[in-house]
């Protein structure tokens, strides 16, 4: 494929830059909880990627009777498939993450006793 020159022989266009510090931002009071949130979103993306691959495999098997890696990678969805898959993707994001928007104003502390009649 590409001519494998050493990186030092390459034409370069980049220069020095000023690094930001957003990687150290803490919004949830504990950096580990912030990290967990990133993990949860990343997992959603990984699951969706596997689901897409599975969907294409199923489609190829049912329409062509065989499947290769190249066929999966090269598959171009129809407009109908694109619309249907986008709707499913958006529904999944909503289904999985909607709990994040739940009302927490009545959250109770762990040690609070519940009063029964």
């Amino acid at each position, binding site marked *: *494929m*590409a*001519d*494998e*020159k050493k*990186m030092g022989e*390459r*034409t*370069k*266009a*980049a*220069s*020095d*830059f*000023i*690094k*930001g510090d*957003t*990687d150290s*931002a803490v*919004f*949830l*009071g504990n950096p580990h909880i*912030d990290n967990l*949130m*990133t993990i949860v*979103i*990343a997992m*959603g*993306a*990984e699951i*969706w*990627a596997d*689901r*897409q*691959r599975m969907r*294409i495999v199923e489609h190829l098997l049912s329409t062509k009777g065989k499947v290769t890696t*190249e066929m*999966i*990678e*090269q*598959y*171009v969805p129809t407009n109908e498939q694109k619309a249907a898959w*986008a709707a499913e*993707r*958006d529904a*999944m*994001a*909503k289904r999985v*993450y*909607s709990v*994040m*928007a739940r*009302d*927490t*104003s009545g*959250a109770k502390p762990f040690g609070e006793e519940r009063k029964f009649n």
Partner: protein
Amino acid sequence: MMDRRTLVGVGAALTTAVSSFFGGRKAEAKAKDMAYPKGTMQPRGHVERLERFANLSLESRQDFLMSFRTWANGDLGRTANARADEILKSKGIPKDNQLSQAEAIELLKDDPIIAMSTRGWCSAQQLMWSGLKEEFEGNADRYLSEMEAADKMGPGKLELNANLKLPDYVKHEIHIQPGGYVGSEFAGHMYHYGTNAFYTGRNFNDELHVGSANNMPIPKDGKVMRILDVGCGIGQLALALKERFPNAEVWGIDVGGPMVRYAHLRSVERGLDVNFSQRLGEDTQFPDNYFDIVTSYIMFHEVSPEGTAAQVKEAMRIVRPGGIYYPLDFKLNGAPRRTAYGMYRGWMDHRWNNEVWTQKFRTNGLPDMIRKAGFDLNEKEPELLRGFGILNATKPA
């Protein structure tokens, strides 16, 4: 449209063909062999103007992150906004009370839903960038080869200026893009796919740039021979302007070498004769009165106040009498009053999305600068992009 890997083969094979007096067919065959050696994955083609990602997994992950972003900006954002209203109410603060930004931040920053919304946005943005960085830097050889092949091809030309002294204000990682616009060889690649996510799928085919180009006002005498897009990034507006004005000499300049390099790659792919050059908007190197139209696409909010003043002055020098200067950017005139949650989000964007200059852009008096430079300014029409500002300036004839 030629795919980028064939481009590599064509570039290399044509070089061989020319030096060996080979014919075109032989060069073409060699190009194919070089682009697709046995056992490697074929390029995945284009979706209209957009080259598909190199593999399905990356494409799917980025697709999902865009969907999450849309949901987070929608449902979660509305919930966070409503929560902000509740907090104001609980404190007895009228909803329309104009708080200072510091007061708004203090009031809202510790609420769990608002914090979750902020974290969700940030995590999705970080994951989007890290996925792109991993792909392009992890396969640097391939992507650099594609750009090197295109560097020497036309119809337009590419000028990189390794000795250009960059002002500090351009060196930030705007939008937390790794390396910003100047610090990664793949700044253009990352910007292209990253901003597609910002537009949540509405700009895969440069629709917003094409729309802006098509709405661009022209000088009263109708003469459009030369056009400049300042801070052109990956050249989306410049290319769209070339499509609208095929006979004009069109230039795009940007401080980011990797940005103009990628812009040139796209112009080669699409066969559009646009020149891209790494230059400063403050010092464009063009002759006086050279351009009929000088424009920029959502650039000034990423420029320091000093840089803004210098660029407006430079625009006045290079626009010809009767020519147009239209720097498209966020709305300044008649922008809606910001709620407490809007103030909080504004801070988030500035501080954590690394929009270093946006807040100053809102107060630096760009319309006045344009008038003081000597332009006649029309702030009423035409609107290039719905919801954005109108700064339609004409240099007096």
